[in-house]
């Protein structure tokens, strides 16, 4: 990918090798330039927890963390992510950072068909990393980019609200450190 060869323009369908760290593991795979990251994750790396929904950045089903921040895996080509650190729902689950959110979603039945759930969790994690005590209105604002086609938003807002409060409580019990 370095250097602009004369042949590059004729090589539109040729695959290129990309390397990134996915869920803490170094990964290399062959992708065509037009393959999006969500397709690469699902088809090449068999990480099917990340869902492809609208594929235009509106529904939030494909949210992953790229270099620590939530991003749509359908709005980035895999070649662009070369060198990046990516966390998918599988990695976030393994590391336990979402365990309280997942337990609360489960307890409150904050999912119906489940298609949007991992995007909701990635988004909720992003929100709580930015705003420690969001109001219900702020939670709803933050979720405006995540579509739940079962329209079960109320329980999702409840779950995020409850986890925010629990995390605050845990932080203050821990002596006010972050």
């Amino acid at each position: 990918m370095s250097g602009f060869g004369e042949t590059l323009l004729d090589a539109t369908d040729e695959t290129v090798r990309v390397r990134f760290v996915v869920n803490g593991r170094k990964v290399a795979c062959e992708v065509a330039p037009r393959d999006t990251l969500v397709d690469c994750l699902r088809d090449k790396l068999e990480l099917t927890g990340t869902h492809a929904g609208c594929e235009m950045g509106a529904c939030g089903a494909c949210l992953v963390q790229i270099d620590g921040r939530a991003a749509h895996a359908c709005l980035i080509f895999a070649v662009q992510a070369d060198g990046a650190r990516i966390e998918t729902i599988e990695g976030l689950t393994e590391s336990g950072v979402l365990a309280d959110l997942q337990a609360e979603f489960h307890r409150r039945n904050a999912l119906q068909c489940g298609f949007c759930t991992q995007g909701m969790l990635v988004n909720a994690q992003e929100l709580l990393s930015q705003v420690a005590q969001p109001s219900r209105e702020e939670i709803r604002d933050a979720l405006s980019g995540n579509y739940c086609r079962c329209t079960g938003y109320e329980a999702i807002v409840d779950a995020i609200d409850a986890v925010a409060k629990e995390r605050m409580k845990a932080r203050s019990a821990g002596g006010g450190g972050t």
Partner: protein
Amino acid sequence: MKARAFSYFRAATIDEALDAHARAGDDARFLAGGQSLVPALSLRLQAPRLLIDITHIDELRGVRREGGHLRIGALTRHCEMLSEPLIAEFAPLLHAAAPFVAHPAIRNRGTFGGSVALADPASEFPAMTLALDAEIEIVGASGRRRVKADDFFIDLFETALQPGELITAIHVPLFKADQRFAFDELARRRGDYALVGCGIMATCTASRIDDIRISFFSVGNTPTRAKEAERSLIGSRLDAERIAAAQGGLEGDLAPPDSDEVPPAMRLHLARVLLGRLLGRLGEGA
């Protein structure tokens, strides 16, 4: 919903990026945050032969003071408008507008320069460059130049950028103690494109307005300054009568396009409502 096949080139320097564009015979697009370009490619509204990734070009990064301006690198992400202290202090209008730009995950990747280059008439930041009297710094094969925001937006998605040219930075005059700003938009749902939005920068002596720039978005083919409304306010105090006069001026300033969903008269009405609210807020602060 898949992009047509293209070649991808990651440029390390501005020269490399410009050179790649020239060699592709203009059948190329620069790729920054990609939050608008990638959906456009997926929908095949655009199908260039080459994508030139400019996100690794260091010169396009960073926010710093330069004389009386803040130089905001083109690759500055929307989320940085909220987190960067220099923006909060010296370009508070951008800080105020940022939470209204799409959704958090989009703000994590979308770039200021990309938004201005695309010039979506419904976007917040292009309109704010008008309110701020910003200058767009551009580089191309024939060298570097700066274009005032007033001269940059020409028509629907059409700007002063020539094929193969790249925005390197946006220069914003530093916010001063005698200035006030206001921003808001009316949308059906937070994060959606606004039905109408507005940003205002005013310079005041006591409570008299010495200068004011009012910029609307989502009301026409380009971000639009409300010059008649501005004229009716300069040299005056912000009282109810003046605000009503400014609202009346919008009839001549704005020509919302016809649409089944939001008829022009309704959009003009919403613009008046929004302007009234914002001027009211400015007046309270004066």
